[in-house]
C-alpha cells in the first residue's frame, strides 16, 4: 500500500515533466531530446536559491518557469524554426531536430559541468515524515505531488478552455487546416514549445526537493518522459497523466521488491511492451 502511494506521488511529478515534453512533441512537433537538461537546470536553480537564501522550491517555480519559457521560445525561434522551414519532409525534420536537440543537450550538460562541476546536488527541504492513511511519507514528496497536480490541472484547463489553448490543440491535430482558419502556426508552435520547457523546468525545481540530481542525469529523465509520452499517446493529456502514474508505481515496485538499480530497465521493458502491442498509445485509436 505504501509502495503504491509512493509510486503515485512520484508519478505525479513525472506527469508534469512528460506533459512538458508532450507540449513540445505533440503540439510543436519537435522531439526535444534536451528536455531533461531543462529539468536539471530547473533543479539546479532550486538548489542554488535554497542554499543561498532558503528560498522554497515552490517559490522558485515562479521564477524558473518564466525564465525557461523565454529561453525555450528563443531556442525554438533561433534554432528549430530554420529546421522546420528547410525540411522537405516530416522525416527530414525528425532527423534534423533529433540531432540538433541532442547537440543542445550535450552543450547544456557541458555548460552545467563547467559551471557546477560533476557533483551530486541535493538539499534538505521539508524532509519530515508525515503520516497518511496509516503509513508515513516524506512531506517534500507530498508537497511536490500537490504542486504538480495544481500545475497539471491549470495546464489542462488552459488547453481545454482558452482560445490559445484550443488553437494549440488545433495545430497538433491538423497544422495545415489550422493555417487555413487563420491560426499563426509558427507563433503558436513557439509558444507551445516554450510552455513545454517552462513546465519541465518547474517539474525539475519540484523534483529536486526529493531526488538527487547531477549535471548529466538529464538524459534519464528525457528517456522516462519519452516513454510516458509514447505510452500515453502523443498529444493526449489524459493519457500522459495515466501513463506517468503507471510508470511511477511500477518503478517504485521494482525498486522496493527487486533492485533499485533496475528502475530504468523496468521502464524500458514497459516501453517494449507498448511498442509491440499498442504503438498508438494506451488510449489511442489504431490507425493505418
Amino acid at each position, binding site marked *: 500500500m505504501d509502495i503504491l502511494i509512493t509510486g503515485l506521488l512520484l508519478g505525479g511529478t513525472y506527469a508534469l515533466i512528460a506533459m512538458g515534453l508532450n507540449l513540445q512533441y505533440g503540439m510543436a512537433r519537435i522531439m526535444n531530446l534536451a528536455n531533461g537538461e531543462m529539468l536539471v537546470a530547473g533543479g539546479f536553480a532550486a538548489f542554488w536559491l535554497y542554499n543561498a537564501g532558503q528560498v522554497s522550491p515552490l517559490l522558485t517555480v515562479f521564477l524558473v518557469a518564466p525564465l525557461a519559457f523565454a529561453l525555450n521560445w528563443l531556442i525554438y525561434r533561433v534554432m528549430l524554426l530554420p529546421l522546420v522551414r528547410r525540411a522537405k519532409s516530416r*522525416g527530414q525534420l525528425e532527423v*534534423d531536430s533529433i*540531432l*540538433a536537440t541532442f547537440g543542445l543537450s550535450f552543450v547544456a550538460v557541458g555548460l552545467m*559541468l563547467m559551471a557546477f562541476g560533476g557533483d551530486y546536488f541535493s538539499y534538505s527541504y521539508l524532509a519530515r515524515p508525515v503520516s497518511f492513511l496509516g503509513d508515513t511519507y516524506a512531506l517534500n514528496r507530498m508537497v511536490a505531488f500537490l504542486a504538480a497536480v495544481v500545475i497539471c490541472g491549470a495546464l489542462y484547463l488552459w488547453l481545454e478552455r482558452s482560445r490559445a489553448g484550443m488553437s494549440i490543440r488545433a495545430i497538433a491535430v491538423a497544422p495545415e487546416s489550422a493555417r487555413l482558419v487563420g491560426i499563426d502556426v509558427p507563433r503558436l508552435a513557439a509558444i507551445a514549445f516554450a510552455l513545454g520547457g517552462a513546465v519541465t523546468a518547474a517539474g525539475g525545481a519540484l523534483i529536486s526537493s526529493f531526488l538527487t540530481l547531477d549535471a548529466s542525469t538529464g538524459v534519464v529523465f528525457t*528517456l522516462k518522459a519519452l*516513454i510516458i509520452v509514447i505510452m500515453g499517446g502523443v498529444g493526449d493529456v489524459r493519457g500522459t497523466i495515466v501513463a506517468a502514474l503507471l510508470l511511477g508505481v511500477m518503478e517504485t515496485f521494482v525498486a522496493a521488491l527487486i533492485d533499485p538499480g533496475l528502475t530504468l*530497465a523496468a521502464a*524500458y521493458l514497459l516501453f*517494449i511492451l507498448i511498442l509491440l502491442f499498442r504503438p498508438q498509445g494506451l488510449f489511442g485509436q489504431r490507425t493505418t
Partner: protein
Amino acid sequence: MTGQELRALILSTLALAAAAALPALGSSYWLTMGVTIAMYTVLATSWALFSGPTHYISLATAAFFGVGTYTTAIGIELLPYWTLLPIAAALGAVMAALVGFATLRLSGVYFVIFTLGLAEFVRQIITWVQNLTGQKGLYVLTDLTEKHIYWQLLGLAALVYLAGWLIARSRLGFALRIIGDDEEVARHVGIDTALAKIVLFMVPGAVAAVAGAMLAPRYIYIEPSLAFTPMLSFQVVIMALLGGTGRLWGAVVGVIPFTLLWEAISASFPNQTTLLLGVAFLVIVYLLPRGFVGLLEDARRRLGGGGW
C-alpha cells in the same frame, strides 16, 4: 569488373597494406591511436551502411559493443578466442533483429529512443545479475597484444567494406536506395520495407559486437559501465555524419579528424568532451548536413563545371 571498380580495389588494397604496416613504426602512441581509429572506422562505416539509406539514427552501438565485450569476457574461460568472434557476431545480429522487429515498423523517433535506452537496459540487467552472483567484473587474460588487436580490427574493416560493396550491388542495396527515395513507392513496387531494414540493421549489430569482442582483451578487466558506455554510440553517430553517409568511404573521412580532435581535447580539457560532442552535433546539423563528402562533392562539381 569495370575500370573504376578495379581502381577502387587497387587503391583500397594499398591503403589497407599501408595501414597494416603502422605497428612497424614502433610508436606505441600511434599504435594506440591506430586501434582507436580502426575501431571507430569499423563502427561508423557499418553504422552508415544502415543509417545512410534508411535515415534511422541508431544509438545502439554501445549495446552491441558491450554484448560483444561480454561474449569474450564470459566465453574466454570456456572456448578458444577465435570461436568467440562468430558467436559475438551472431548475438549482435540476433539482438539487432529483435530491436528492428520491435521498432523499425514505427517512426524514426521511436527507434532513436529505443536504441538510446538499449545500452542502459542491458547494463542494468548485467549489473543486477552480477550483484546476485556477487561478482563485480570479469578478467580477460590473453596473450593478444595491441598489435594483434589492431590487425584484427583492420581485417574487420576490410570485411565491412566488402559487405558494403556487395550490398550496394545486390537487390537489397537497390531496395534500400528506393526506400531512401520514397518508402511509399518502395512498398508499392513490392519491397518488404520492414524486412529490408531489419536485415540491414543486423549488419551494424553484428559488426559492433565483433568489435567489442576484439577489444575485450585490451581492457583486461571488464565491468558493465566500461563495456556499455553510452558515449560510444554518440561518437559513432557524429563521426559517421561528419564524414557523410552517402559514400562507403565517407565514415573514415569523419573518423580520423574527429578522433584526433577528441584525443587533443580530452588530453588538455578533460571536462569539456561533452561540450565538444554537443558542438559537433550542431555543426553537423547547421553547417555540414551532408558531411565532408558533401563538401568534397560540391567542390568537385564546381570545378567540373556543372553536370551531375
